[in-house]
């Protein structure tokens, strides 16, 4: 008992320390670091949203950039009509939810077909954004009116708020009966159906949730970056990054995407100035190595730290035997 108390206290202390650093960062860090922190928070939020459907529910979607891009475009259009930011963010998320309803039939396919169909879905949304010039301005791109002022404090705190909200949702999903059922259906859909998990409903709700969060982050990105075009926001790179971070960190775990985002940001900053395409090469190689040799992800290093009680129980059991 005492060791568990100590553990909980220690964890709380770490959490408070991290929160303090995160909240005060822009006060002492220079703009370069603040920018990295903003990018990191965007990636954490995206990866954690993707992880719910891609990791926990095991539906390896390559199409999530479509939700991100939709959110981005909705904000750009809202900004032209002087709609308040908060409302635009929510609208961006809701538009992504509507798109996720359209995407729902893709769940009829499995395995490789699912991966292919989600790529086709993403490419279709991109091509629609390219062709629907009266709304999206096509390939020439959309200049977002009234974007965030560069070097201001507001964009930093907004994205931290969004990322924390996403993390809370992710935590709640993963540590709930809902999350357990998702894990069950990711293992074996028929078996899950047999024990009373409504597979279609669970997939739909999770996809919509995941899409909503991606849409909100997309809307934020649009407001933050100030200029979007189909090539940049509907790029498969976004999907790829989400998948990558979850796999490197640990598919289906809460901390996995966060850890993956940290690693990804570190690598991309390492090579950003010298050789940007080298970082992609490292990602590719890392992805191959992780999936073959280390499927549980980097988080498995910390698994002892993360679950001491379960571990102790196991040790005791094995001692008895």
């Amino acid at each position: 008992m005492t060791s568990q108390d100590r553990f909980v206290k220690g964890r709380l202390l770490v959490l408070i320390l991290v929160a303090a650093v995160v909240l005060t960062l822009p006060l002492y860090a220079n703009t370069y670091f603040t920018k990295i922190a903003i990018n990191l928070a965007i990636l954490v939020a995206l990866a954690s949203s993707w992880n719910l459907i891609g990791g926990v529910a095991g539906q390896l979607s390559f199409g999530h950039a479509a939700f991100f891009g939709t959110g981005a475009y909705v904000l750009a259009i809202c900004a032209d009509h002087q709609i308040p930011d908060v409302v635009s963010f929510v609208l961006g998320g809701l538009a992504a939810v509507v798109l996720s309803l359209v995407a729902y039939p893709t769940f009829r396919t499995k395995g490789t077909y699912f991966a292919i169909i989600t790529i086709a879905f993403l490419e279709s949304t991109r091509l629609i954004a390219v062709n629907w010039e009266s709304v999206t301005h096509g390939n020439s791109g959309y200049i977002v009116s009234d974007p965030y002022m560069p070097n201001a404090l507001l964009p930093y705190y907004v994205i931290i708020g969004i990322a924390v909200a996403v993390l809370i949702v992710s935590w709640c999903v993963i540590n709930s009966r809902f999350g357990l059922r998702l894990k069950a259906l990711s293992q074996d859909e028929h078996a899950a159906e047999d024990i009373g998990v409504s597979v279609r409903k669970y997939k739909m709700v999770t996809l919509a949730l995941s899409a909503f969060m991606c849409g909100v982050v997309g809307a934020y990105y649009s407001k933050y970056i100030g200029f979007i075009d189909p090539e940049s926001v509907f790029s498969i790179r976004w999907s790829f990054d989400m998948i990558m971070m979850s796999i490197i960190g640990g598919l289906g775990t809460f901390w996995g995407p966060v850890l993956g985002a940290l690693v990804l940001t570190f690598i991309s900053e390492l090579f950003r100035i010298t050789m940007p395409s080298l970082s992609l090469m490292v990602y590719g190689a890392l992805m191959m190595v992780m999936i073959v040799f280390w499927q549980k992800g980097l988080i498995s290093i910390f698994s002892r730290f993360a679950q001491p009680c379960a571990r102790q129980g196991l040790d005791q059991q094995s001692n008895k035997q």
Partner: protein
Amino acid sequence: MITFLQGLITGISIGSVYVIVSLGLTLILGVMNFKNFAHGEMLTIGGYISYLLFIFLGIGPFYAIPVVAVALFLFGVLLQRVIVRPVLGRDYTTQLVLTFGLSVFIQSLLTLVFTSDLKGIPTQIAVTSISFGDIAVSTIKLFNIFFSIALVALLSLFLKKGQMGQFMVAVSENREGAQLVGINLEKVDRFAFGLGTSLAGIGGAMLILTQAISPFAGFHFLLKAFIVLVIGGMGSIVGAVAGGFLLGIIESLTGLYFSAKLIDLVGFIMLLVILIIKPTGLFGKK
């Protein structure tokens, strides 16, 4: 009518590349049930080898095709040894993520070497054309069409008469059974992966005859190849041929009668509709 015929021939010519690339994909899929997401990059590599041969050695793009075929065959055998064999039989997520990682790796490697600019081969042949009545067809388009037909004929002959071809058919029909009657699975896998990769490379060497390529060209063709397989059925040679030409023709006519910007959208929408109505592909079993 003349525009229609022109569009048709252009479509068949584009389709011939689709046919060759999808054949490679379907071969690997049929024999070892391995979905190679890096298949498109084999096409890109083939295209770049052809480009290098022309720039540095002055070898014409037609003569480059056999060189590319051999080089990519060897590369395929190597990949099979190093990357594919360890994950054969593992779950699809592993195969998918592994080959997707490989695809990203090769794309960025090619970007490092060649930059992301388009690279093409400036040839005189591109402008020469042969006229049939009122229709003028460029020599390269004709070459691609006849070359692909010849290649398909050769491949079917090989699968019917060749010893290794027979083995491949046997393994694709029943893997355990083939092993029981004494077929060396390892050897067949290696050969099938080499041949499939080689076909993708040939597709790249054909592609660079008609258009310039970038390191990201292959991924596009991977998607097309999957569309073809979904139309024609996975693991079927006839299906891949029919689907490839059909997709090329549909795309070309869309560009002609609607808008060039819609060309890619048609294929994706076909894929979405077919898979949603029939999740295992148009001629899928199960």
